[in-house]
């Protein structure tokens, strides 16, 4: 329950190159991020696509990093944690 109520942030991009560049910038500043397929509910249009998954404690530093480096991205979406290893829903 605690995990499900936790907010995760997904940063969406126009293309994966933007995503990889931002992840590199975050890595240089030792800010944790993970590559994730963008949840369908926030994609907005037909498409698979990469996003960067950010934990709530890191999001302010991520925003600062984006601003400082003028990093390109499409949108930042906040969602309740989508991850549940005991869901037993496979593809």
């Amino acid at each position: 329950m605690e995990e499900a109520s936790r907010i995760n942030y997904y940063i969406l991009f126009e293309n994966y190159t933007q995503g990889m560049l931002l992840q590199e910038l975050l890595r240089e500043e030792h800010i944790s991020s993970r590559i994730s397929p963008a949840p369908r509910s926030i994609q907005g249009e037909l498409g698979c696509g990469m996003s960067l998954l950010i934990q709530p404690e890191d999001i302010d530093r991520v925003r600062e990093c984006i601003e400082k480096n003028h990093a390109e991205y499409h949108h930042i979406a906040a969602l309740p944690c989508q991850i549940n290893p005991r869901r037993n829903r496979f593809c």
Partner: protein
Amino acid sequence: MANYAEMWKDLGMDLEAHDALCAVLPTAFGDVYLSQENRPEGMGFWDMVVADIHGIRPAELIEAQKKGQKVFGTFCVYVPDEVVIAADGIVTGLCGGSQFWVPGGEKVLPKSVCPLIKASVGARLERTCPFFRIADMYVGETTCDGKKKAWEILGKDVPMHIMDMPQMKRPQDVKKWEGEIKEFAHIVEEFTGNEITPEKLGEAIHTINEKRKALARLYEARKAKNTPISGRDALLVMQIAFFDDPVRCAQMTNKLADELEQRIADGVSVFPAGTKRIMLSGTPMAIPNWKLHHIIETSGAAVVCEETCTGTRYFENLVDETKTTLEEQYAAIAERYMGVNCACFTPNTGRVDDILRLAKEYDVDGVIDVNLKFCCLYDTEGYTVEKALKDAGIPVLGIETDYTDADAEQLRTRIQAFVEMLG
């Protein structure tokens, strides 16, 4: 985010149906992969490939086609990539690993065909996978009856070449396979318009050997007592190896192996000390079939090796690179591929030897012999495999499953009991 809708439309895909697949993949990937802690940083590359799985690589293949390259879709580790690459072609694996595609396959195949075949046929006929749309030619083989009949159906929809697999491993069978490879080479030359020379074939053999060596390095790291990578992550690397560019695959896998070797030196593991080590033997797990690995690794055990076509069978043994004539090179390729121990052969004692050897090399506590439902060959051979393991004192659990979610909890209960029994 990247929008590949135009590309998919140009490929003649059913966008609405495909969107349903795009909706479930992020959830499954998140549950299986992003729930893991302390994953190697190098896995970011494979995460990115999955995140854009129907975008990045398909776009690359289409660009290559615009430059005149042909794409060959394959379904088996016996089809020699070297031949295609020597003719400047591209190989992409086409085995379907999702339940999403199964109902489409069941429209033309009996229910009692394995899910891998049904999913592969469904992905093509329902137009919901770009790789199945992009491939200029499919290359089938006669490794099982289900596949043989599936090729007849697919062959009405796409150019198809079928390689006739020997059923035994006598010297005349190796010779026969060499003949099949030569005939395939002739077909590939005609289809691509490119001649295969000894120089080009030599380079292709080297390229694929380098990929095999990189994957072998990854597996070597999994032998460490402090397992530096989860079975799920290793499986993902293997699954993507089937359709990525082979040079890039080797490069990225070697980079990952560097990190894993450093982790071993630093004593970093993704599992707590004492976690039971499991080897899987049996049928392949095509992307995105992560079900059994996930259940095992969320039931207190670690998967450290797969004796499957998406495991050791894919990379073990190299093609001899010293040969300089086409005649010798085709013989060397045949020799290497006939060393793969598939249940389609009789007798198949080599496979049991492999399993016992691997169990020792990877220091496993137990083996799970897993067969896709309706895979008669592996299911039947399960008797021999399980008996050999029991005789060797290695605990074994036989499992039959498919791509559905329905048996997940039942499997979890059985696997947890098996892991507990390991002590």
